[in-house]
């Protein structure tokens, strides 16, 4: 559906994007992951035709963005990081304008508008001026704008930034639902978000692709141990002694003292050995109850640290 080959964008001597290539298949949700300034927005701006690349090819639905920009734009709905809203319009007027701009036949638009507004839940604010809406509602209106004309490809630049947790959940579910019909590229700097929603992830750093894979494979490949945080009631020394004698535990440190006689620890264990059961039995035997046990996700920062340090090692 989307083909990107050797895409480069230079600003003076700085390469905002450096020779990146990837494909997105029809119906796929692709996550675009990277820290601020990595080149996510630049790439998205090029795919949508907002800015032009220095070199490289972008094709959407078989059309080249440089040769057939209007055709490409017909196939794309874009939600930029800052939703492109006119504050002096009501939600209704604004969506009508978007449909007008995208040349949607007015008969078809009437029913489509109703569906879109219900989907992103803005029906009850449809008569209000956009400038009076909260950040979350503005984001939804921006989302509605991208859905106008039901484009095959949706490009969403950090769609959940600045929303409250409930709204984030809603937007994520919405994206998942939309992924059944649309091809989606979604950018984010939050790893759990991407792993919750996306089929495949592109990690981009300083304009270059650091990795492309499924979210599961990425976190597995990057760690050869699993990590837990565990809170146990009992004297620190004794507990530590028990844990470190369990087969498979590689590293153990105390992370905090919660109360008198209650500590939490971070355990790094061999990935192939499940240490949770022996932990439970042995601690229970000694009369030190486990109050909390959960596995720690590898955060994006750590993934990055790992990826970049690996590269440096290879370079040496």
């Amino acid at each position, binding site marked *: 559906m989307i083909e990107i080959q050797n895409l480069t964008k230079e600003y003076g001597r700085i390469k905002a994007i450096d020779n990146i290539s990837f494909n997105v298949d029809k119906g796929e949700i692709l996550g675009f992951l990277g820290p601020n300034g990595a080149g996510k927005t630049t790439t998205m701006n090029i795919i949508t035709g907002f*800015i032009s690349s220095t070199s490289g090819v972008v094709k959407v639905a078989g059309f080249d963005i440089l040769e057939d920009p*209007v055709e490409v*734009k017909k196939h794309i709905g874009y939600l930029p990081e800052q939703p*492109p809203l006119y504050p*002096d319009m009501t939600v209704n007027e604004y969506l009508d*304008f978007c449909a007008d701009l995208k040349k949607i036949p007015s008969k078809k638009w009437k029913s489509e508008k109703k569906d879109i507004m219900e989907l992103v839940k803005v029906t009850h604010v449809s008569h209000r001026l956009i400038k009076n809406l909260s950040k979350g509602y503005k984001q939804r209106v921006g989302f509605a704008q991208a859905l106008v004309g039901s484009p095959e490809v949706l490009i969403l630049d950090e769609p959940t930034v600045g929303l409250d947790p409930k709204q984030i959940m809603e937007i994520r579910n919405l994206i998942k639902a939309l992924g059944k019909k649309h091809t989606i590229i979604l950018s984010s700097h939050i790893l759990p978000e991407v792993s919750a929603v996306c089929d495949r992830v592109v990690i981009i750093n300083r304009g270059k692709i650091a990795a492309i894979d499924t979210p599961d494979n990425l976190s597995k490949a990057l760690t050869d141990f699993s990590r837990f945080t565990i809170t146990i009631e009992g004297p620190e020394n004794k507990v530590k002694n028990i844990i470190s004698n369990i087969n498979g535990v590689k590293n153990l440190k105390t992370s905090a003292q919660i109360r008198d006689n209650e500590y939490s620890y971070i355990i790094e264990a061999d990935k192939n050995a499940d240490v949770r059961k022996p932990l439970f039995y042995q601690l229970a035997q000694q009369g030190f109850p486990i109050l909390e046990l959960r596995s720690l996700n590898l955060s994006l920062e750590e993934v990055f640290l790992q990826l970049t340090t690996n590269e440096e090692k290879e370079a040496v």
Partner: protein
Amino acid sequence: MLAIIRRDFRSYFKSPIAYVLIGLYMLLLGLFFNSYLGLGISDIISEFVASMSSMLILIIPILTMRTLAEDKKNGTEVLLLTSPVRVTEIVMGKFFACFCVFLVMTAATLIFPLIVIIVGKPDIMMIISSYLGYILIGAVYISLGVFASSLTENQIIASIITLVFMFLIQNIGYLAGFFSGFLNKVFLWISIFDRYMDFNKGIIDLTSIVFMISYTAVFTILTVRIIERKRWSQG
């Protein structure tokens, strides 16, 4: 293009800007009209329309400053440029929206010639020719204002650029006085204001009409170039 014209035109009348501009314009024109009442019936219209066009230097910068600058500031530029619309259509949409507001303002001023027609027998062709010239020069100024608005996201700066350019354009003919021979002819030829004065004297010349429209087209094309260039920018 129609979508953009409709949206922008409505947006002028949703904010106080159109009403304030038209109100201010009519008030000042009323004062002018009053002071011209002593003139003969044949002179009053051309004098009056001439002062209308010199008033444009105050009105046009305020009218056009928001066109593209506001979209850049709101981020709606992204929406326009990623829609299946060509840049030329966007710029022309912006231009025609302003032009329509300008026409509404112009229509409001027709009350003054109407008064003259009621009380006397002015030369109707003279009124038509003055108004034609006025509308054409208005189009040139608006295209200039849209161009200035494409250069910056600050509306105040856009309006000042428009003001300065309008002043320069109005005085090209004056500059011609400093030269003789060929240069003098060139300056007089490109002087938009001298051509405008022909209309004001009741002369409708096809060359001048084409000239004014070309001026408008040049600024519109320049605006398209500016936007395209920004998209291709490497720095």
